[in-house]
């Protein structure tokens, strides 16, 4: 029986000829990524036997550099664990630092056609690399690193075919806000992205879209492989043995939807929910904001920083509004330094923080206070997500956030891109 990409990857990883919706797949885990929260004392257990150190990656990301004693303790636990089992891929505070999903992208750790797990919900980010990647729980990670396995209930697949290309000032975030606003949650379903317009999306754009799949509550979010992915893997991880996986012709999708990228416009999600909550920017234009944030595993890419720099270049952040930008990794931070983006953003009055999950998770470096209004290009706008529960969090693209930081109110980014060529 023909299979979707998710079904094929799960079948191969479990040594079965066939996987279909409703099956339970018990798979070999190619890559297990442990982030710093996994090592917090309430969740971590001392590991006595490890399945295979070469399959483990450790990334400190939510709490770097450590803002609390507890975070510092978790990092110490992670370092001791890495040393004990000889885990080489340890991304500690410093040059290798970054948000786990962004580090995985930078280093080409996500192998096309294989299974990757991480105890963070946005692990689906690696679906941009044709990888069956899923956020799991802390205990799942202990299961994966000690037994080398993970289990998944196989869901139905929804297929999206892209046609056309985005207009200037419209980004992958807006594609996501369109899908979330139009089609809502995809609970227990896989999402598969492809179509003739997919090639117009950069790897960074695909990462944004794949990352945000967590907000669709999808199981696996997977892009088709193409030449752009092949080139990317050659550059980032030339030694990797990859298994690029296309869907079988005639495979069964629960639904198949076509999106003409050229028809999309900048959107904003209203506070408290990401799905079924998108409106055109014009509908909330003029809403005062105390803070604009651009960062997280979804929007801390070099493309995102380039857009922010483009919008704020030679201008100033409005009085009464804060602009906070957090690159996804220190590698991206360095690239942004070399490209002049950091200078441009800071000269405009923005703050560029070290790479961390930071403000997106309300942990540090941009936590919002009571009754504040934030416009964010990150992953979530839930009540209390970025700080005090009385704060209101709108979500938009990096371009919309940057344009709004300059005026102090939610602003359509179109005028900053009028002369550009897509």
């Amino acid at each position: 029986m023909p299979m979707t990409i998710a079904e094929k990857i799960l079948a191969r990883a479990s040594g079965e000829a066939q996987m279909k919706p409703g099956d339970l797949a018990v798979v070999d885990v190619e890559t297990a990524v442990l982030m710093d929260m996994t090592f917090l004392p309430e969740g971590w257990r001392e590991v006595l036997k490890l399945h295979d150190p070469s399959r483990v990656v450790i990334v400190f990301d939510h709490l770097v550099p450590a803002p609390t004693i507890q975070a510092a303790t978790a990092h110490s636990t992670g370092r001791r664990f890495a040393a004990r089992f000889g885990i080489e891929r340890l991304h500690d505070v410093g040059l290798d630092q970054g948000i786990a999903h962004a580090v995985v992208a930078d280093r080409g750790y996500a192998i096309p056609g294989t299974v990757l797990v991480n105890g963070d919900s946005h692990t689906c980010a690696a679906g941009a690399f044709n990888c069956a990647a899923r956020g799991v729980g802390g205990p799942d990670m202990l299961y994966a690193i000690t037994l080398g396995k993970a289990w998944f209930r196989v869901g139905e697949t929804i297929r999206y075919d892209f046609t056309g290309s985005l207009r200037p000032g419209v980004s992958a975030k807006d594609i996501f806000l369109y899908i979330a606003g139009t089609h809502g949650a995809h609970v227990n379903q896989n999402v598969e992205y492809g179509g003739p317009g997919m090639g117009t999306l950069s790897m960074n754009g695909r990462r944004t879209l794949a990352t945000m799949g967590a907000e669709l509550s999808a199981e696996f979010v997977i892009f088709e492989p193409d030449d752009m992915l092949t080139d990317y893997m050659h550059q980032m991880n030339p030694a990797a043995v990859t298994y690029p996986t296309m869907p079988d012709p005639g495979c069964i999708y629960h639904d198949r939807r076509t999106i003409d990228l050229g028809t999309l416009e900048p959107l904003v999600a209203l506070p408290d929910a990401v799905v079924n909550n998108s409106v055109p920017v014009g509908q909330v234009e003029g809403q005062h904001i105390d803070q604009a944030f651009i960062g997280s595993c979804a929007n801390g890419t070099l493309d995102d920083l380039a857009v922010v720099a483009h919008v704020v270049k030679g201008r100033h952040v409005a009085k009464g509004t804060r602009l906070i930008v957090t690159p996804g990794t220190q590698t991206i931070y360095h690239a942004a330094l070399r490209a002049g983006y950091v200078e441009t953003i800071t000269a405009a009055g923005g703050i560029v923080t070290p790479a961390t999950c930071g403000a997106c998770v309300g942990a540090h470096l941009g936590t919002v206070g009571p009754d504040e209004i934030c416009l964010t290009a990150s992953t979530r706008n839930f009540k209390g997500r970025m700080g005090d529960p009385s704060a209101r969090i709108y979500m938009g693209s990096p371009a919309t956030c940057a344009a709004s930081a300059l005026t102090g109110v939610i602003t359509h980014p179109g005028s900053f891109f009028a002369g550009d060529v897509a």
Partner: protein
Amino acid sequence: MSGSNALGGKVWKFGDNINTDLMLPGPWLFRSAEEQAKAVFINNRPEFLREMRRGDVIIGGFNYGMGSSRPAARSLRNCGVGFLLAEALNGLFFRNCVNFGFKAFECPGVSKAFEEGDRAELSIDDWTATNTRTGQTLAVTPIPSMLLEMMLGGGVLPMLEAKGLIAKRNVG
């Protein structure tokens, strides 16, 4: 009720898309599991913990448990919720229910069949849920036996302990 896998309690009803931030708010992420269990729904329904009794039941709507991977299921287990039935469970939340040994199942039609304060009874042997006020019985969607075994056995950690893969600890 009959059999070893029969449970019952008073119903607390919740709507669609209840997220894990509501069950385990961000500021409590870094506190002990015991303290986390005292923060369940404090931002959206502060009376829940004051008034609920051990064994009470949560009836949820569509996509219950959406959001982050945080161990919200552990907090529900630790604060004494007997079991949870929802129209649809978020996949990641469900994993944590299995992993932390908290009974949570999908039961189509459940949000219409129960009102706040009703008594819900669950039989895992028969895969049914009953509203004792109306007498209506609904089918609960069975889960694979490997997962049910882990869920009823207290989760993944006791299993890994028994295999000698992780060190033992009394809490968590």
